[in-house]
């Protein structure tokens, strides 16, 4: 029976009312009296030496407050990188400086050179056009393999080469993997590209810096997924502002998908300039600016080999990946192709030997960092494509080949360092076969063929690792941050509750789902609980929202804090009821002496805490507020099986998604409506990657897909209704809610299903096409079918 409140209920989202009525408060909706506007003059060449910048004429233009260049940031910290990867030889990665405004060189189209602060945006832009730049264009490196050639132009002159690191994982397995591949009965090899994407949350990035001379306090309003992380990075590493004098607020944020995790130059600039100009300074990215300044995602070039024995058991996997870092290291960029990618290469399968090599490369392109899934989609894509190709080469059913190699016993320690606590891959595959109606496929294929179309079916599995943790482990892996989260539960005198959480909601519905948990624990109505997030001055600390972590990590902190509340409230109740604390039960908003009808209402207990007239003051303090920090003991491992059915027009190469089904195991589910919505959105992004989206540079480093005119965003008519199921639930064994996270699954699980389906459709037409790189645009599919 579906519940109508608490954990498991499809509670309607309370945040919707403000979003639906135009009452949201996004960063661009914030206007502060006297604010000035900043326009960034950005490089229009991919690589160049700055000979001179003359701002004298521009500074005289109407409305100009002040013009800043790289010189103004001498002695100011650069944008820090939050993860240090150690290479195959035990050496730290090469880590270049990343100035707020370019110093000496520009390294990608969009690299900010100067910033004009003026009374209006138009005046700022007019003045920017009057800045005289002398930039000597240098040859650019765009292609990763070319960037590693001897004599290639160097993105950073002070580094030894364009190689950021050469990472091997697990290095000690390498010889055994090589040997197993040499001796295999069959080896399937696949070379592929995981296309560069632009996250494109619909709200472009915005920053408003404000400075109060009265108390020497800086405030930054910014479109961030993790305001505390920005406060830490910007305060400690860039601008040297102590935490107690720096407030970072991320109000309503219009989507993030990873690209709003990172600390960006523009937000540091606005904070810096507000103090220098003694005026609030506002920056709002145009979409065109977003394309050349938001961190991009993916961009891997990979060769994967899968070895099988004579019985089709997987015996070894070897992969070699070139991962594009872009021109600078974005905040978490080094971790994505390594610890978020290599550790997932076992997928859902019992492959005893795995070796992953990743070469991270600097190029004259926008920095690349985490985008929905971050490393896990890249792992899943190559693995699930190579398994599909192996099935085709061996002439076996791709589902049967997967089932034969599924991990079936848990916990399972993979050869790539992680231990899956729980899962049931057979159950999700069984469920998928049912909800996708695989039995009806042949009839549907015949119907398509009757109308001159080809029809294909693609299936794949995925596993992801969410809630990246624990801190002491990730610290050993190079993280320069802890990966816990925090929550404060503040119970008010009348029993209403404010929960201050470190997670940030920018579409995930925390304001609705988190209260469901607390309400369940206390037996009170959800409406009595309010979630506060996104303001460093209101919340003890928090690591923010990314990697499908919010409920698993921050939600667990909230549970721990609520447990402390219950413990203290029981003490108060036992005093009021004159009973032993051990006999007090909390249920339905009441504290009851077990086995009796003696009880005291929640509100009476909370009132006693704040009006402690009849209160055990000798034992406990008044008040009812508790904070907990939670550091998980392991990742969580959601998994699932996805199925895509496509129709292909052989005359044009156009692919239409006819059906899409997902069977996920997210462990326990707090709000199924929200969970399904997350999967829907992820699937659309995965379909976008597979069929539509491609961020393309030309050989000179000019961005060709620089707007929605050339970067194809999925639209309503590109996708069907999806069938999503999350009834297979193996609860996480190590967090109190048994939840695993659902935010990225759709984007991880869907690209291989789509590509497998298109290959199947082409094969059904008699053409032996085994691979096409994403996006499978009509032109690429048609061209592949001509060979």
């Amino acid at each position: 029976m579906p519940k109508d409140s608490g954990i498991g209920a499809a509670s309607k989202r309370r945040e919707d009312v403000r979003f639906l009525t135009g009452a949201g408060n996004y960063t661009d909706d914030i206007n502060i009296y006297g604010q000035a506007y900043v326009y960034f003059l950005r490089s229009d060449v991919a690589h160049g030496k700055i000979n001179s910048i003359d701002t004298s004429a521009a500074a005289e233009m109407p409305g100009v407050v002040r013009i800043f260049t790289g010189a103004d940031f001498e002695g100011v910290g650069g944008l820090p990188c939050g993860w240090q990867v150690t290479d195959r030889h035990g050496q730290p990665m090469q880590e270049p400086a990343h100035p707020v405004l370019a110093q000496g060189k520009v390294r990608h189209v969009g690299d900010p050179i100067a910033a004009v602060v003026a009374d209006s945006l138009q005046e700022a832009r007019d003045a920017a056009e009057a800045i005289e730049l002398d930039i000597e264009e240098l040859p650019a490196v765009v292609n990763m393999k070319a960037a590693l050639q001897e004599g290639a132009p160097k993105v950073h002159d002070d580094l030894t080469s364009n190689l950021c690191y050469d990472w091997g994982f697990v290095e000690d397995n390498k010889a055994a993997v090589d040997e197993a591949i040499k001796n295999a009965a069959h080896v399937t090899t696949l070379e592929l590209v995981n296309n560069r994407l632009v996250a494109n949350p619909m709200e472009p990035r915005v920053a408003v810096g404000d400075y109060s001379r009265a108390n020497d306090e800086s405030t930054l309003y910014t479109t961030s997924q993790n305001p505390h992380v920005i406060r830490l990075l910007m305060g400690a590493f860039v601008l040297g502002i102590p935490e107690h004098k720096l407030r970072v607020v991320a109000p309503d944020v219009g989507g993030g998908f990873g690209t709003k995790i990172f600390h960006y130059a523009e937000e540091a600039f606005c904070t810096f300039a507000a103090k220098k100009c003694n005026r609030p300074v506002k920056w709002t990215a145009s979409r065109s600016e977003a394309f050349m300044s938001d961190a991009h995602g993916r961009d891997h070039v990979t060769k994967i080999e899968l070895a099988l024995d004579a019985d089709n058991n997987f015996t070894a996997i070897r992969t070699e990946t070139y991962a594009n870092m872009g021109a600078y290291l974005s905040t978490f960029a080094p971790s994505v192709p390594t610890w978020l990618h290599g550790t997932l290469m076992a997928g859902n399968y019992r492959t005893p030997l795995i070796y992953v090599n990743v070469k991270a490369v600097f190029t004259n392109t926008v920095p690349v960092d985490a985008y929905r899934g971050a490393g896990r989609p890249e792992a899943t894509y190559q693995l699930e494509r190579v398994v599909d190709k192996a099935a085709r080469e061996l002439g076996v059913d791709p589902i049967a080949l997967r089932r034969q190699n599924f991990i079936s016993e848990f916990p399972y320690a993979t050869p790539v360092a992680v231990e899956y606590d729980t899962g049931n891959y057979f159950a999700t595959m069984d469920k998928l076969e049912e909800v996708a109606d695989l039995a009806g496929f042949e009839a549907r294929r015949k119907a398509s063929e009757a109308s001159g179309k080809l029809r294909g079916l693609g299936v794949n599995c995925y596993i992801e690792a969410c809630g990246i943790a624990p801190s002491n482990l990730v610290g050993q892996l190079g993280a320069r941050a802890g990966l816990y989260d925090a929550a404060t539960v503040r119970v008010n005198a009348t029993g209403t509750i404010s929960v201050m959480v470190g997670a940030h909601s920018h579409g995930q519905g925390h304001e609705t789902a988190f209260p469901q948990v607390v309400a369940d624990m206390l037996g009170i109505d959800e409406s009595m609980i309010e979630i506060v997030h996104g303001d460093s001055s209101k919340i003890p600390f928090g690591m923010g929202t990314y990697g499908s972590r919010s409920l698993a990590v921050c939600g667990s902190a909230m549970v721990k804090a609520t447990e402390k509340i219950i413990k203290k409230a029981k003490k108060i109740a036992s005093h009021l009821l004159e009973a032993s604390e051990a006999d007090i039960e909390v249920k339905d908003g009441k504290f009851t002496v077990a086995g009796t009808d003696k009880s005291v209402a929640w509100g009476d207990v909370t009132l006693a805490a704040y009006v402690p007239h009849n209160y055990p003051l000798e034992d406990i303090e008044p008040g009812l507020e508790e904070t907990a920090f939670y550091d998980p003991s392991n990742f969580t491992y959601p998994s699932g099986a996805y199925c895509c059915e496509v129709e292909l027009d052989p005359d044009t190469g156009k692919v239409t998604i006819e059906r899409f089904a997902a069977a996920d195991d997210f462990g326990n589910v707090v709000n199924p409506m929200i969970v399904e919505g997350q999967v829907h959105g992820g699937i659309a992004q995965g379909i976008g990657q597979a069929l539509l989206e491609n961020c393309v540079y030309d050989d000179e480093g000019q961005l060709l897909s620089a707007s929605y005119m050339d970067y194809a965003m999925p639209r309503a008519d590109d996708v069907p209704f999806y069938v999503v199921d999350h009834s297979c639930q193996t609860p996480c064994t190590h967090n109190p809610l048994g939840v695993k996270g659902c935010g990225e699954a759709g984007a991880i699980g869907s690209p291989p299903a789509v590509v497998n389906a298109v290959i199947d459709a082409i094969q059904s037409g008699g053409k032996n096409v085994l691979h096409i790189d994403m996006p499978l645009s009509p032109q690429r599919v048609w061209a592949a079918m001509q060979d």
Partner: protein
Amino acid sequence: MAKVTMTVNGRKVSGEVPGNRLLVEFLREDQRLTGTHVGCDTSQCGACVVHVNGKAVKSCTMMASEADGADITTIEGMAEADGTMHPIQQAFQDNHGLQCGFCTPGMVMSAAALLKDNPNPTEADVRHYLEGNICRCTGYHNIVKAILAAAGQDVSKIAAE
């Protein structure tokens, strides 16, 4: 500068605008009606859709001066005076047709224009009509469902689990 006067959500408003003032700037900055959003600069995302004389228009691609004398409805004008949401707004909440909420005002305004022209659309009609409204969060599933529900259709069987 030129004086423009228009009726916005039933209220007569006026202001002095330069020739290059966009309608969306007039609404967001001069009128402080920040419910209408700007998500792109190539007239594609649709976050800025408002109604001008009853027609859906991208307010980022119309000059404020062109709207002189017009009757404008924005997302702020959709609910009843007492705060009761419009049936389309309610259908979006009931069917989880929004996540981050940024594209939502434009989606609701486009949906309202669609249902005015076509009170009983098919799924394909809805998807086609939303060509100029991009959402990055929902995968469109629940948006399409919400609009069909707002049209009074039974959506309980859509992609049933």
